[in-house]
């Protein structure tokens, strides 16, 4: 009965991600809620600022990323709520390597879920606002790295506050200031892609990628000792 060192951390994370995806497939209410939330938020924001302003290449991406950020919080919170329903969280974190795998697996799973939400939300915004896209390839890259940059912080904050009663209030308060650089970078990257500024889109996307990498490593370092 030696230690099970033969199963890599990556494979464990993949198992957690697969478990999450299977549960989401059977109960897609979390994804549907996130997409609905995002669509309503984009629509409301567009109405509030007016369609002409909302179509501006500096404003439309901001509306999109703010909505996606809140959708990420909704999705991640829902994911951890499910872990708490039958103390499933304890079952995973008591496993050898469970804490690392839980964090990394949630990153992968929520990255996938957010990718879907981002795709649907993006298409809805393009249709709602009748947006013209000068550099579609750059926009896709900016969106992919922007989506990848969200889960490391959102999952970290939800994981750290998972057992706190004030979690619903704490998560946005903790996450939003830390996510501000991502929000700015993602908005500028997408705005540059919409406006046809290839260099700007690439530079902001590279910054987003670096932020995603730093926060993922930071999360992997902090979470194993912080999850209780």
């Amino acid at each position, binding site marked *: 009965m030696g230690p099970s060192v033969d199963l890599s951390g990556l494979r464990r994370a993949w*198992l957690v991600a697969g478990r999450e995806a299977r549960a989401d497939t059977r109960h897609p209410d979390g994804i549907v809620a996130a997409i609905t939330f995002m669509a309503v938020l984009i629509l409301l924001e567009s109405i509030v600022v007016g369609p002409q302003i909302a179509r501006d290449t500096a404003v439309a991406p901001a509306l999109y990323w703010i909505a996606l950020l809140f959708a990420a919080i909704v999705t991640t919170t829902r994911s951890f709520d499910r872990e708490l329903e039958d103390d499933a969280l304890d079952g995973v974190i008591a496993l050898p390597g469970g804490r690392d795998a839980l964090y990394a697996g949630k990153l992968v799973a929520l990255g996938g879920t957010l990718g879907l939400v981002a795709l649907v939300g993006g298409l809805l915004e393009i249709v709602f606002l009748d947006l013209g896209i000068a550099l579609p390839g750059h926009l896709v890259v900016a969106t992919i790295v922007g989506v990848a940059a969200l889960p490391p912080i959102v999952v970290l904050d939800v994981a750290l506050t998972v057992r706190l009663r004030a979690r619903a209030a704490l998560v946005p308060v903790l996450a939003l200031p830390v996510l501000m650089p991502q929000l700015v970078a993602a908005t500028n990257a997408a705005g540059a892609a919409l406006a046809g500024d290839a260099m700007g889109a690439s530079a902001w996307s590279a910054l987003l990628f670096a932020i995603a990498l730093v926060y993922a490593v930071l999360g992997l370092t902090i979470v194993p000792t912080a999850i209780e």
Partner: protein
Amino acid sequence: MPSVESTAGLRGATVILDDRAVLRDVDIDVAPGITVLRGPNGAGKTTALRALAGLVPLAAGTREVPFDVLYLGHRAQLLHGLTARENLRFFIEFRGPTSRARLAPAAPGRHGEREARLAGALERWGLRADADRPVERLSAGQRRRAALARLDTETCALALLDEPFAELDAEAAALLRSSLLDATALGTAILIASHGHAELDDLAVRAYALRDGRMVPEPSAD
């Protein structure tokens, strides 16, 4: 540190939760076989198990545990949205090849062996007909059975069980006794928190008692 023959242990363990010391200077050794941790409700038994499982931090003292620990708490720890079979399969796959067959004869290949082991455990615990229903649609007793079936599907050096006989009917209690004996035969050290179930009297080789978070004298079953 725990004594030489022990698999795991706490030494001078103190746990503080919500500004209250729920464990104070607790020493526990868990050796192969069954060790019982007794005490009334609120004595700190669950906290002691969670401290050993690494689920609560120690304010003072030390914890020594092996790499592969199985912790079964009050609740079933099964993810809603997955079936009982999928949940058990997840735990087996997560642990990797150290989990090995105890019930079913090995089928060719790792995948076949795993599925045979799963099917055998589900059959043994009376869950064959409901194994592919999402766990949230099972009764509390069925979920409890599915959780305890992990004793048969996973192999570990240390198993920590919190009131495992709670919510079990006579048949399931007998199955649990059998699974515990199977696990101890494989060398697993088992620590069971209990507020006094008679089922454990003839199984335990060692016993501790807690009251108000402190160790109190308990005669050994040796």
